[in-house]
């Protein structure tokens, strides 16, 4: 009986601890994904959508890639234009991918950019 209680206690403690490890790992992974996406978004918002890739100094994560593409934002109210002068509203789509090409996260940011930067 005593042995059974001891064994159950130990199993419960080990279970709690391993679930804590999993939860912390998951939280860290989620934070890292968001952090890498933010890093990519900040870089492309700063240097413009023309930048094809992000240098290693700004994205030191060799197992991941971040890419930026542009889209024309839709759903404009009638009579409202997406451009004024040489400026145009575009949507920057920033995607984070693993080395296997799987998309891990995506951010879409609307930005007014100069026509020459497109």
């Amino acid at each position: 009986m005593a042995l059974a209680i001891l064994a159950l206690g130990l199993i419960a403690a080990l279970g709690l601890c391993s679930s804590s490890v999993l939860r912390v790992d998951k939280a860290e992974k989620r934070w890292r994904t968001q952090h890498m996406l933010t890093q990519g978004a900040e870089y492309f918002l700063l240097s413009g959508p023309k930048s094809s890739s992000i240098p290693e100094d700004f994205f030191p994560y060799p197992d991941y890639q971040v890419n930026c593409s542009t889209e024309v934002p839709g759903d404009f109210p009638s009579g409202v234009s997406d451009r004024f002068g040489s400026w145009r509203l575009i949507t920057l789509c920033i995607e984070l991918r693993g080395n296997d090409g799987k998309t891990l996260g995506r951010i879409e940011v609307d930005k007014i950019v100069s026509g020459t930067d497109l």
Partner: protein
Amino acid sequence: MKIPRQKNFTLLELILAVAIFALVMLTVSMALSSLQQSWRKVQQHASRLKECQILERVFDSAFRNAVPFSWPSSEEKKEKSIFVGAPDKVSFAYMHRISSAEEGGIRFICLYLENDKLLARYRNTPILPWESSEDGGLREVLASDLARISFLYAETRKDGIGWTDNWSENQSPNIPAAIQITVEWKNGNKEVWLRRTAGMGPRESFGLRKEVSE
């Protein structure tokens, strides 16, 4: 008269009991040691995550809300920018949420490495580069066990964005378009945070867009 015989443990029974006890203790100690290792791992990961979140909070609020700020220099008798952009230290002014009347809307911050710790020094009055003493203000330890920190500053050029690790006080505008901090821990971990200041870009600053001549 017959004396009742006492029932004692035999040597074999004793050896068996001791062996079982040793086995149980061995199992318990192994389980406890594995429990301790797991707990240590949880603690390390949790504290690292917490440290990164603290750094992110500070960089998000300070870098993003950095504003140009000048103050009269008594020696040169002219207003000078208070922005200090060194490879391992940065000091500037940023817009801050007003939580008490004494604080005001602008807070001054200096980020630097001291004794393997990344420190943030906050003050409600300007932290002047030409100040001789480093008194006053609040100090907060943002991260510890660091090997090094380094800063990069983005400057807007005609052909786009350029990067420098030393921001000159004569540069215009007197704050960079973005600041990147690289934090390297002694255990080999490395993180970078790039933040644009006040939404500036190569062709825009503080909401004003330069017309493109090309």
